[in-house]
């Protein structure tokens, strides 16, 4: 069963199509790097896949089900542009909260575990608003991975991360892929993304211009895909 399948997706803003007949597939255990210029529709597409908005036409399926179904939501992890954790709560409180929202059997234990895995166990009782930027981002990563999602959707995750956070994220993503989870990430940072990616898709002005396996050439020359499949 395909992990993520978007078929014939159109998204309109008024009468303007931001996404035009987009097709996207990601099999379990793969990492799909979604690349494209600003305004190509990457965030729009990811948000539709994540169930944050609805497609005008076409359908999205996560393991064969609608993204908004409760069971599907349990298996989805999301990192968007914001960190999606509460400034007024501590790191531990935030993760326990999400543990409870996802109905984990032992939210507090899961929270501690992920604080350790992201190197935040020493600041577990610190309020998020006092954290440095890198710490906030690592907490966002912990939040997304906390409930062991089968599918991870990441919207430009490497943008504005510090080195430590990048290292943590890359390690966690590699572990996740090794465990058979699926990752779809949109990105500008071609180098970091292409290192991890098994597949690449290029979005150009709302259309899927290319989707295929990542090749060695792409890693060596990140601009290659754009050169060959970009701008009409």
């Amino acid at each position, binding site marked *: 069963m395909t992990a993520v399948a978007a078929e014939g997706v159109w998204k309109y*803003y*008024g*009468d*303007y199509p931001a996404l035009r007949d987009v097709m996207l597939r990601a099999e379990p255990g793969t990492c799909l790097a979604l690349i494209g210029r600003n*305004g190509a529709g990457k965030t729009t597409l990811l948000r539709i896949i994540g169930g944050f908005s609805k497609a005008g036409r076409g359908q999205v399926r996560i393991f064969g089900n609608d993204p908004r179904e409760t069971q599907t939501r349990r298996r989805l992890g999301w990192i968007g542009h914001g960190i999606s954790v509460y400034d007024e709560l501590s790191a531990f409180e935030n993760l326990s909260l999400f543990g409870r929202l996802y109905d984990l059997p032992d939210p507090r234990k899961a929270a501690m575990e992920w604080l350790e895995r992201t190197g935040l166990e020493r600041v577990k009782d610190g309020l998020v608003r006092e954290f440095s930027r890198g710490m906030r981002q690592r907490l966002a990563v912990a939040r997304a991975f906390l409930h062991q999602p089968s599918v991870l959707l990441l919207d430009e995750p490497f943008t504005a991360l510090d080195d430590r956070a990048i290292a943590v994220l890359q390690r966690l993503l590699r572990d996740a892929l090794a465990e058979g989870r699926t990752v779809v990430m949109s990105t500008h940072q071609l180098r970091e993304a292409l290192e991890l990616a098994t597949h690449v898709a290029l979005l150009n002005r709302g259309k899927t211009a290319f989707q295929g396996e990542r090749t060695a050439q792409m890693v060596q020359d990140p601009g290659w895909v754009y050169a060959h499949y970009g701008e009409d």
Partner: protein
Amino acid sequence: MREKLIYSLGVIAAVLLARDLYSIFMQLPDEASQGMIYRIIFFHVPAAITAMACSAVACVASILFLVTKNFKHDAIAVASTEVGLAFLAANLVTGSIWGRIIWGIWWTWDARLTSALVCWLLYAGYLMLRRAIEEPAARARISAVFNIFAFADVPIVIFSIKWWRTQHPQPVFWGGGSIDPAMYLTALLNLVALILLGVILTLIRLRQEEVQREIDSIRRYAHAV
């Protein structure tokens, strides 16, 4: 095709209005206690009824939009609400004029006027809400939900204010009053005329809304390119 519909409805409405105006001013006698001004009732009451019809249409259109996601329904909702708001304003103004002539005051917190004012505020809020959202899909969705809430509130508002006024009486405009059968026909025909006018205005506003959407999308294309 729509133009033909608008024109033919317009002709019918014009004929009805002409006939009514003739009847109102030439044929019917002055009313016993109120004199000339009672004639305003032929516009005051139908305006309110037309406004209510418009709000019902808007609510149905809003529900249909949420179900089908078809922007045509969103256009009907906003067109109908705007037209209804205009008729409600006419109701308020004619009511105020009436009060000024009869009672010497521009306003009284009579149950019907107060309800009309509150409903006007409710739906004016709808238009303000739409103004504040630029993205068309979000605008349609959010305002559709608001419209449903507003429509649910309308009967509650009318009833609660009516009950409040029976406990705290104020000068009432006409005591409920039975209408002389001679006037009944004119009143009814005027209602039909106003409703037709409402339909015409809604259709015109609908057309304008569609053109606006086309312009918006062309503009977005232009920006993208």
